[in-house]
């Protein structure tokens, strides 16, 4: 439809330079509208990103003149145990955070989409963690996970578990604890997206299905889920990007510890760059992280396109 509108004037007989000028004018007006936003984006995002890409092939301590080192930074990465550990941990985090948040958000949205008494309150309550300061969230959960005095372990002990995990002081349990915290924090935001998606599903579909004798599970599987595909795709893409970029929560909760058991890529970028001053190497890691996120997102787009066909 949008094509037809723009096609029409193009099909009309050419009116020479006047036509061209009008087009240019429209373009300029259009640009002037996006200019304020674009200037901000260019100054604070585009230029630094391009600079970071260039830095990945340099060695630079932020003070002396940068030195061209070609692919040395990437070769160093292959040798670097910290990089391997951080990459593994980032994948582990993403593998836990993405599906769990998605399921939690969808579940919450379905429950809170019904005609429940006080539904507004519960929706707000579910969204609340997302607007809470991340540092506060991390500090509170750190206390909850305290191995001796924390409510989590006290509850587990009360219901009869023994030999409890020490959570953030254990290399095996630190990452699951971080994942639980981040799922709790993020699910409210994606729940809102799912709620919007759910409300756009026409009630008639369900009515028709009910007539045909579909039970609740069938209705969910064959109507709700397929109708939510665009939402799920968006949520998945956002979650993937967010997951791979995880930094703040981990810095406050564990600072990568114990040992290196929760060290993630973004944190390594920060540590190598800002703390150690190896800006070239740090940018190279950031570039690799960028490529990973980009390729995962591209794959998701491809899969989505194929299914849309």
């Amino acid at each position: 439809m949008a094509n037809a509108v723009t096609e029409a004037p193009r099909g009309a007989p050419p009116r020479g330079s006047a036509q061209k000028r009008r087009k240019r004018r429209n373009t300029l007006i259009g640009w002037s509208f996006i200019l304020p936003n674009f200037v901000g984006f260019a100054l604070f995002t585009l230029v630094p990103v391009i600079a970071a890409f260039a830095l990945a092939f340099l060695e630079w301590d932020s003070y002396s003149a940068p030195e061209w080192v070609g692919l040395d930074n990437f070769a160093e990465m292959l040798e670097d145990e910290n990089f391997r550990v951080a990459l593994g941990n980032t994948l582990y985090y993403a593998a836990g955070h993405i599906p769990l948040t998605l399921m939690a958000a969808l579940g919450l949205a379905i429950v809170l989409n019904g005609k429940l008494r006080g539904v507004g309150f519960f929706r707000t309550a579910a969204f609340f963690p997302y607007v809470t300061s991340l540092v506060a969230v991390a500090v509170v959960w750190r206390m909850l996970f305290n191995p001796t005095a924390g409510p989590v372990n006290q509850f587990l002990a009360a219901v009869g578990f023994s030999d409890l995990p020490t959570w953030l002081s254990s290399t095996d349990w630190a990452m699951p604890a971080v994942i639980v915290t981040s799922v709790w924090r993020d699910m409210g935001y994606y729940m809102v997206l799912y709620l919007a998606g759910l409300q756009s599903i026409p009630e008639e579909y369900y009515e028709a299905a009910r007539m045909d004798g579909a039970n609740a599970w069938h209705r969910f599987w064959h109507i709700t889920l397929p109708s939510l595909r665009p939402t799920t795709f968006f949520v998945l893409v956002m979650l993937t990007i967010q997951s791979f970029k995880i930094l703040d929560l981990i810095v406050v909760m564990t600072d990568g510890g114990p040992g290196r058991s929760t060290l993630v890529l973004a944190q390594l970028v920060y540590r190598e760059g800002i703390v150690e001053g190896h800006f070239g190497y740090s940018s190279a890691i950031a570039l690799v992280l960028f490529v990973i996120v980009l390729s995962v997102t591209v794959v998701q787009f491809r899969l989505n396109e194929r299914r849309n066909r």
Partner: protein
Amino acid sequence: MVTPNKHRGGGRPGRFRRALVALTAVALVTAGCGSGGEAAEESGPVTLTVSVWNLAATPEFQAVFDAFEKANPDVTVQPVDILAEDYPAKVTTMLAGGDTTDVITMKNVTDYSRYASRGQLADVTDLVKSKQDLKLAGLEAFDVEGKYFAMPYRNDYWVLYYNKKMFDAAGIAHPDKLTWDQYAEIAKKLTKGEGEQKVYGTYHHTWRSVVQAISAAQNDGDQITGDFEFFKDQYEMALDVQKAGATLDFGSAKQASYRTMFETEKTAMMPMGTWYVAGILKNKAEGKTAVDWGIAPMPQKPGASGVTTFGSPTAFAVNKNAKHTATAKKFVEFAAGLEGAKAITKVGVVPSLQSPEITQEYAALEGMPSDELAKTALAPDKTVLEMPVSEHTSDVDTILKEEHELIMVGEKSVEDGIASMRDRVKKVLD
């Protein structure tokens, strides 16, 4: 429709160009603001900016500032307060971004060596040379191939804080030159109570220095070489005390404040740096704590002759991009000298400047423990630098910290931990 457009269309690019020119002008003006730093000699009122951490809990900063302002009436000192935990990263970023804060406080020697090697600090060798008659403890740590880029004004070393009341109540003699075995034994004896009421015999903070730096100092070990066998005894002692429940476990200690532990009398002993003296004196004076405290020398290896401890100096440096370089240098010199030393001594901080006069003033401070034990603690025979300075210091520091955590939470045995420290550090050194 076409004709009016023709006219207006012609005007557009002109306006657009003008807007571009204006934008460029704004950009140029803003850029110009950033590079007005190089002033030669200052005259008239000067506002000197100094980077500090936790100003409210670190009273010596204000003490030096007040003294300096009094001696230089036309100077106002404006502290740039930074959260203590973020201090190194924040200062690194500031310096990298060309920040013009005049005086940068060097929280530790490792960061100092990095800033100095990057050429981010002004050379103050002439100041140091002109003050050669002063005895500044820890000055050698700031020697970078014969040049100095900072001057120490305070020098902290570790002592054993203890709660006199708890020792007396248990009928145990105050901790005079203990061996580590005796220390562990006393820690277990003084532990009592359960849950919220539990009082620990000692408190080991989570820093790796609590185990590593003291054992390096007392065993002549080098924390850079990659051979860390000398950590073994100290780790076994620390783990034994922790296993007996005589200190807060590592996981919980990560979230604890050592100040709260000692001041709310949750622990009977605590190895800690002398910087904490100022904090206790202040809180006692303000009535925030009633702890009856003393200081003793750090426990020693069996058969050790004198008192060996570790410590690190703190220094002021002049930013290379300082707005007021001359005043900044004056401040650095003042803080390291006698007047600066006297000012910080008054709030209970051990100055770098060593003179009988200062020592006497320090011991005579209001609220300061003045018994013989405190005097021995405040005059250690040997103070080893907490962490040697080399280009690999910070990489090695990260590795030692990570493996320390793993040993202390019981994920790795002492032998395995020390072995992976060795393997990982050797890789960095190669």
